């Protein structure tokens, strides 16, 4: 094995290990203990269901406010008043998702990775409720930051 192959192998192994290192209860284990949705608010689940590009873990902003981090196999949620929201991640470029939120509504935002010039781009996408609910089951709660 030449040095270049070793370097790629090591980097790949590190990425896989990083992706597996996410801790916290699984969504399926904490469903019963999740806080009820306060009246006159909606809930946004934000999650990342892949370890691809695991080393790239940018902050996630909601209307400019840091609410969490893009961690492989992790999820968090925020309860917000109805209105217009912009989910944004930044690596070498900003990637944004604009969406509405209604009272009593639950929305699922998946964070995916695409190739970038120097680093991968993490982009938020709005997914169907049933798909989000399914994909989030085995992901781990990483908590959120900010209000």
């Amino acid at each position: 094995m030449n040095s270049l192959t070793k370097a790629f192998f090591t980097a790949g192994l590190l990425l896989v290990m990083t992706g597996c290192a996410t801790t916290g209860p699984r969504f399926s284990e904490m469903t019963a203990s999740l806080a009820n949705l306060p009246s006159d608010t909606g809930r946004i689940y934000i999650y990342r269901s892949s370890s691809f590009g695991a080393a790239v873990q940018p902050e996630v902003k909601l209307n400019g406010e840091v609410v969490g981090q893009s961690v492989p196999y992790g999820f968090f949620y925020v309860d917000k008043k109805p209105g217009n929201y912009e989910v944004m991640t930044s690596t070498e470029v900003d990637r944004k998702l604009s969406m509405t939120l209604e009272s009593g509504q639950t929305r699922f935002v998946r964070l995916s990775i695409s190739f970038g010039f120097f680093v991968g781009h993490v982009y938020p996408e709005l997914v169907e409720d049933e798909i989000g609910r399914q994909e989030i089951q085995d992901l781990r709660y990483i908590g959120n930051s900010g209000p």
Partner: protein
Amino acid sequence: MEEEVHVSLGTGYSRVLKKGTTWHFVGTIASGDVFRTKDQILTVEASNIHEAYIVVSSGNLVGFYLPVEKTFSPLSGALELSIKELAPKSLP
């Protein structure tokens, strides 16, 4: 929506309006009537992704209304829709 509709966004992305979805009138802009649905997620995508409603004029899909940006994103060509109008619910 009586038939599935494939829409090319002109940004290299495409979207499908699913058969059987029900769309509700939410308002009118200069380009047509705006409808939204809770039966599917609809977004338009370029460098960023935006939630979108459809804009219909004379039975044709003419573009998308972006409710957060409050802007109209036109299609390069109108697409005929196969739709069935539902009677409005009667008031009690």
